[in-house]
């Protein structure tokens, strides 16, 4: 038998739907792709705390406030699972945060939209987290073990996020006319950005072939977007809310919902940094990091002193 190269052995494991683990040999490009993807995913989770953190002090009831705090805490947790998965690839969490703060790594542009009413908490949970679930469920079968395992935990928790969002909108939609209108307004504003979350159409984003072959990505941008639309349209009917797209209709032949064209100019503007909140999100993130440095230093100093005392006691 001809000896296989390391790369062939690696691809054979991937093709057999086996998982690659941290100490296995892997192509350098695979490692870099994963670091980039997991890091930007982690950044998205922690930046994602901001739009919702905005409403904690103004949640309409103690019940809603407790739920929202738990959700924002989950986003921090998701960030931590992901940073620790990225670290198994040989990069430091501090390095990744530096790259985020320097604007050299990005986070999902959906978090550059403002949350102007309470109903936005509902729309984010239902639509943004709903889209995230569609995006993330296939990653639970990603070829890289630590990323896939982190995603299993995250997907379980996202389900709570989506359901609490749906409940907020359902309550508002069936409340007073003003509440109903608030819910409808939030859905109007978040629907198209949620569709854009899946990225540009497949014919404009041809770079995923390698990620598909490595089984990091399993479905194309358009496939995921269609899945999300098919899931969401019937849910909107139950909510009693209208999705802001007159072209949505059941396509009997295709066996899915047809929907209108997406205006990508807005998406690219937000991505370029011209969204309503790009600067505010980054400024807040960097400030929180800088202002929190004394806590990290104090904890380090306490740990060092305690360790020294233990050593003295032993001597």
């Amino acid at each position, binding site marked *: 038998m001809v000896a296989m190269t390391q790369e062939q052995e690696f691809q054979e494991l991937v093709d057999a739907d086996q998982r690659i683990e941290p*100490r296995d*040999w892997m192509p350098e490009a695979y*490692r*870099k*792709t994963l*670091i*980039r*993807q997991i890091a*930007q*995913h982690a*950044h*998205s*989770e922690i930046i*994602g705390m901001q739009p919702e953190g905005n409403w904690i002090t103004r949640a309409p009831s103690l019940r809603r406030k407790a739920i929202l705090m738990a959700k924002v805490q*989950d986003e921090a*947790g998701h960030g*931590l*699972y*992901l940073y620790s998965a990225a*670290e198994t690839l040989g*990069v*430091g*969490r*501090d*390095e990744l945060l*530096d*790259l985020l703060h320097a604007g*050299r*790594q*990005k*986070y*999902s*542009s*959906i978090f550059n939209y403002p949350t102007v009413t309470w109903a936005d908490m509902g729309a984010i949970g239902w639509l*943004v987290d709903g*889209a*995230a679930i569609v*995006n*993330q469920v296939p*990653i639970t079968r990603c070829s890289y073990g630590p990323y896939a*395992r982190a995603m299993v935990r*995250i997907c379980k928790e996202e389900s709570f996020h989506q359901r609490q969002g749906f409940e907020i909108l359902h309550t508002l939609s069936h409340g007073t006319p003003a509440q109903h209108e608030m819910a409808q307004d939030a859905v109007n504003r978040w629907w198209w950005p949620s569709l854009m*979350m*899946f*990225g*540009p*159409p497949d014919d404009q*984003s*041809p*770079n995923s072939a390698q*990620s598909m072959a490595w089984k990091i*990505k399993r479905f194309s*941008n358009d496939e*995921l977007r269609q899945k999300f639309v098919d899931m969401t349209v019937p849910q909107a009917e139950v909510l009693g809310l209208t999705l802001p797209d007159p072209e949505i209709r059941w396509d009997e032949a295709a066996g899915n919902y047809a929907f209108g064209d997406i205006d*990508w100019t807005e998406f*690219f503007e937000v*991505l370029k940094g011209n969204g309503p909140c790009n600067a505010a999100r980054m400024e807040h993130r960097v400030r929180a990091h800088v202002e929190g440095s004394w806590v*990290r230093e104090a*904890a380090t100093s306490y*740990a060092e002193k305690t360790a020294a005392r233990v050593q003295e006691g032993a001597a």
Partner: protein
Amino acid sequence: MNPGSDLQAEGGHGAVPTRDVPTGTEAGSSPRDWPLWEVFVRAKRGLSHLHVGSLHAPDAAMALRNARDVYTRRSEGVSIWVVPATAVVASSPDEKDAFFDPAADKAYRHPTFYDIPDEVQHL
């Protein structure tokens, strides 16, 4: 170039750029961060502790508290171990075949290796 050509829905919560994104700093992994701890959780009495992930903490007490907050927010555990990541000694993936070879040719260690007449019960 179409600005969309290097965007994928990789961010979990939406599309992010994939081209010209650095995957490390020049500084490398300098240990500015707190030490890394591996976290093991016992889901309930009667089960052993299982590895669930890792986290950074300045000392063991903080590692335990952080592990509680990061890995058991939904009653996933009744007991947690944290172990400094540097204390873990692992077998090498490069020697995987040689290392586990001794078990490969000893099928007689498994009960199914033995031929037993069909009529024999409880064996």
